[in-house]
């Protein structure tokens, strides 16, 4: 039978020496292998960042605790934040983009395979640099270690005077290096999507995942670069005697804040938009319906990309901007909630009238929907700047952004793992372990992050290594810590699932979920060349058209 797939029966290939295999992985330019490298390295950093979180939570379990010294605690929250954003979230999303985008557009590889490899290794090197600071950060005077300036390194705390030794330099360089990697990957993604689509795949026929990665990549170009610029300025201050952020020389600490948050806010949309992509694909398939309102989903995403560039100073409501600036950023921040909220409605609309299959990917997606709703609403609360004058810089903010990142992004990522693991490895993840993972993580997540809003309302600021016993925060913090450990157990279950299923999982076949995008038309795992013949599409769901020739999508688009 004519087929796009050529399968080589197991046992006919010779086992290669492991050195050869390792060499293949280290020198690969195949987007699928690079995607896996991104994802695996992100998982490694996830575990490390998670351990840092557990250290933080153990120290905060009760007031005046002595589990770690203040110096170590401050390093922990700095490293935890930096690791999770730059070396877990960004790489894992780039990894999925790398793996899926060429497959979904019917391409052979990314536009620039070697740039792809270079970008990955730059990114990974950044992570290694950051962690080398534990060893090398001391400098000549034994003054430093891992960075302890918070993941924003506000001026003038990041200056030589307040951060002696090299800890801040490792932070700066790690982010600068991995930032260049991100720019490389983003350029690659844009070029791939614009230049390598298969015939028939006009822009309005691309799967939503492809659209969202296109928007994300364009945001990366405009968002990461201000941080790179600020990092260069900080290095000039620290090494060449510059005064960019030197308040003693008339410089401005607020300027650093502006530059950082001009990066920092679009960055969180860079992180969430690919997760919207996962949700759009998964909710659609598991509701057995096309995504409700595809054009509006695209328009809303583009809208978010633009508006999110104008909201950054809502991270600076307490720094004393005048009332007009505060009002402006209140307005834009609330406004960006509109296209974001619309998406939730569109996903509900997708499920509405469908036939929902409660497989593990869908469980995580439903969790995402509930949690992203709550996260968005607490965001609206803080958009009202007077409310933020109380809530800002407190555990309410910490609860909010963990709700987005863990309750939103991580849940969406788990869904993506369960959904695409069969395609990547050829094996299904265990549904049973998946359910254990889901429920344990859900309970732990809510135990921690629902409760965490309350100390914020009760006046507990963030980034404190201990707190006073009379403030009523003790029991709450204990519960938060317990939840953290429950989540840790759930992650262990997840990792166990990944490993066990790789060897013992059921064989997936090409299309275990009866899905509709191009990646499900080839074998699992796909052959190195992806498609034996270049596909050609006539609608947004080419496999639906093939499976339902009597009622193809192309009739309705």
């Amino acid at each position: 039978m004519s087929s796009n797939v050529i399968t080589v029966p197991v046992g006919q290939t010779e086992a290669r020496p492991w050195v050869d295999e390792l060499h293949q992985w280290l020198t690969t330019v195949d987007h699928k292998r690079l995607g896996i490298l991104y994802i695996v390295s992100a998982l490694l950093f996830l575990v490390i960042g998670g351990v840092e979180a557990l250290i933080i939570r153990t120290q905060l379990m009760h007031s005046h605790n002595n589990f770690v010294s203040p110096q170590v605690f401050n390093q922990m929250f700095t490293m935890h934040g930096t690791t999770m954003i730059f070396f877990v979230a960004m790489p894992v999303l780039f990894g999925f983009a790398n793996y899926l985008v060429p497959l979904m557009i019917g391409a052979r590889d990314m536009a620039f395979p070697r740039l792809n490899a270079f970008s990955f290794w730059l990114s990974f090197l950044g992570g290694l640099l950051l962690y080398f600071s534990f060893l090398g950060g001391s400098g000549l005077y034994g003054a430093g270690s891992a960075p302890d300036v918070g993941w924003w390194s506000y001026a003038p705390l990041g200056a030589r005077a307040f951060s002696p030794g090299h800890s801040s330099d490792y932070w700066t360089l790690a982010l600068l290096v991995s930032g260049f990697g991100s720019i490389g990957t983003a350029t690659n993604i844009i070029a791939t999507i614009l230049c390598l689509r298969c015939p028939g795949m006009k822009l309005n026929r691309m799967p939503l995942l492809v659209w969202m990665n296109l928007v994300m990549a364009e945001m990366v170009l405009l968002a990461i670069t201000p941080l790179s610029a600020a990092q260069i300025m900080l290095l000039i201050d620290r090494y060449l005697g510059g005064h960019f952020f030197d308040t003693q020389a008339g410089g401005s600490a607020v300027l650093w804040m502006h530059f950082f948050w001009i990066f920092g806010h679009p960055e969180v949309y860079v992180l969430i938009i690919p997760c919207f992509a996962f949700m759009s694909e998964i909710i659609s398939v598991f509701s057995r319906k096309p995504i409700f309102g595809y054009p509006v989903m695209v328009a809303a995403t583009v809208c978010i990309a633009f508006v999110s560039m104008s909201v950054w100073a809502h991270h600076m409501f307490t720094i004393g901007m005048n009332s007009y600036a505060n009002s402006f950023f209140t307005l834009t921040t609330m406004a960006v909630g509109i296209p974001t909220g619309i998406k939730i409605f569109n996903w509900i609309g997708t499920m509405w009238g469908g036939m929902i299959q409660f497989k593990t990917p869908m469980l995580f997606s439903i969790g995402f929907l509930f949690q992203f709703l709550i996260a968005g609403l607490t965001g609206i609360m803080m958009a009202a700047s007077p409310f933020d004058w109380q809530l800002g810089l407190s555990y309410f903010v910490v609860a909010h952004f963990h709700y987005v990142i863990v309750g939103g992004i991580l849940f969406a990522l788990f869904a993506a793992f369960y959904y695409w693991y069969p395609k990547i490895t050829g094996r299904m993840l265990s549904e049973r372990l998946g359910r254990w993972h889901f429920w344990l993580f859900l309970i732990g997540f809510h135990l921690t992050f629902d409760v965490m809003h309350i100390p914020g309302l009760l006046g507990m600021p963030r980034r404190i290594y201990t707190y006073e016993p009379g403030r009523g925060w003790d029991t709450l913090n204990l519960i938060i810590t317990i939840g953290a450990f429950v989540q840790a157990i759930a992650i262990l279950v997840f990792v166990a699932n990944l490993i066990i299923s790789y060897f013992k999982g059921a064989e997936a076949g090409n299309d275990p979920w009866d899905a509709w995008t191009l990646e499900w038309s080839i074998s699992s795992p796909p052959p190195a060349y992806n498609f034996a013949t270049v596909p050609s599409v006539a609608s947004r769901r080419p496999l639906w058209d093939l499976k339902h020739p009597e009622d193809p999508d192309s009739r309705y688009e």
Partner: protein
Amino acid sequence: MARVSEVKNGRRKMSLLKTISSTLRFLAQTTLLLFWSAMSVWASEPTGSSSHGTNIFAPASTPAKSIADLSIFVLVITGIIFVVVFGLLTYSVVKFRGRAMGASREPAQVYGSTQIELAWTIIPILIVVVLFLATARVIHAIQDAPEPAGAIEITAIGHQYWWEFRYPKLGIVTANELHIPVSGPDHPAPTFLQLLSADTDHSFWVPELAGKTDLIPNHPNRMWMDPQRTGIFVGQCAQYCGVQHAKMLLRVSVDGPEEFAAWVSAQQKPVIEDASAIAGRRVFENNACMNCHALGGTPADGRFGPDLTHLMSRATIAAGAAENTHDNLRLWIQNPSAIKPGSLMPAMKLSDADLDAVVSYMETLH
């Protein structure tokens, strides 16, 4: 084609059971948590009538009250949105769960609906407009409030890791513990603070008195409060400023008019010389203490550390890190790292005799 997701009758029941149990469990959890948290918010009020907590919903001053009122309004609106969308989500998850199906049966493929999408775009826009207008009013009311003639003026200077407070019109310099007069509708006595910093960024946060405002070097800020109740209000630095950010506590004593006047006149006096403590004063002068600390009316006028002229009028030392007791004072001078590791006060490494003498001297500084 055989699909791994094929559902048999028995599995369908399991799935229904699971869905119901999952929804119930979620609702139960949420309700319990909400109930529990409401209780803990109530329970968190510390005992003692003059000592207040740090609950942003227990405002004792106009800016804090405006914020609390706006916050309730925002919470109500977001609460309604939550209930509606939560309801829709729960309904769709429960109602549209997949039944046992043959491999070829799919639900009606709906691609969108312009009217519905328009509606759920317009309504959020209206909500945002309402929220924004309500918020803008409060922003202006708080930030652009004019300073009346008789207001108490304080300059707060943030240091790593303590607070310097100056009352320029009253000629007072103190540290870490603020005294301000109570304000009432018939005798308004607001306090206006100018916020500066000597080193890194800090943030002044006493939740029951006002929202927080940052202290940023080379960027003066301004805030105000008019507490309507007397008592002690606590807070702490809210912008990470370095190793001992956690122990940069705030203690605001809101005094009735007589107590405040008494405090002011006591603070305005220079050091009261006490002959019994002359040995300690010598230790103070000989050991470079005056390089950092000031004692009003003596040659000591260091500005790097807190002003000690009226040290004994304060309930705590080291910006709230320890109670102001004989033992703590002794320990602090001998080895600050025992109380606040990373604080910029060096360990003075005095002999026991010198240490006792200087502590006795400190204890005369009322």
